[in-house]
């Protein structure tokens, strides 16, 4: 595909359940970012991957959050034992390479609602 693809587009789940969110970056992009956007807020950095390097997990809010990127392409963000405060839009972005000058290309996001 031409752009960053995220699935599902919407996810509703009960508190305490685990969820997996998927991101398929633009082909050839080595850098991948996950952000969380809560209602009326800006983007909160969660984690980023650059090639085969160890990811920067400094933005993950708790140990319930984890992410992996297999084969340097598709990434999954996993939230265990979901809480209501996890409700937000989760955005994925990729860029050609990691760097402050590289514009990020975003997916449409996954809207996560915890009941």
């Amino acid at each position, binding site marked *: 595909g031409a752009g960053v693809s995220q699935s599902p587009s919407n996810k509703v789940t009960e508190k305490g359940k685990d969820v997996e969110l998927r991101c398929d970056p633009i082909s050839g992009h080595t850098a991948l970012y996950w952000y969380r956007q809560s209602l009326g807020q800006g983007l909160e950095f969660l984690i980023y991957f650059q090639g085969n390097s160890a990811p920067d997990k400094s933005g993950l809010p708790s140990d319930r959050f984890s992410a992996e990127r297999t084969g340097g392409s598709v990434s999954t963000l996993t939230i265990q034992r979901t809480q209501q405060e996890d409700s937000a839009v989760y955005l994925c972005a990729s860029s050609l390479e990691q760097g402050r000058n590289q514009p990020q290309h975003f997916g449409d*996001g996954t809207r996560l609602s915890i009941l």
Partner: protein
Amino acid sequence: AQTVTQSQPEMSVQEAETVTLSCTYDTSESDYYLFWYKQPPSRQMILVIRQEAYKQQNATENRFSVNFQKAAKSFSLKISDSQLGDAAMYFCACGTGNQFYFGTGTSLTVIP
């Protein structure tokens, strides 16, 4: 710490008029880049314009231009000849080191 501040949660503009969205940032880095992104109701973030901090010349992209004041750490976005399709949330962002920092956004309404 890096911060990006957008002090205008909401703005409105008459169609065909000009509007300026404010953004200030704070970084200890000497080399950084600044971005404006647009997020329409469809949710997808779209890059509007980018400015290299080492360049004094303000970036322009068709109807979009920036007023970059490095000493004041200010990076405002000017939209000329506003169109209905410009209605969206606008986010200012600063890229430093390995990370990007986003403001809380300005919701722009375009009045026909």
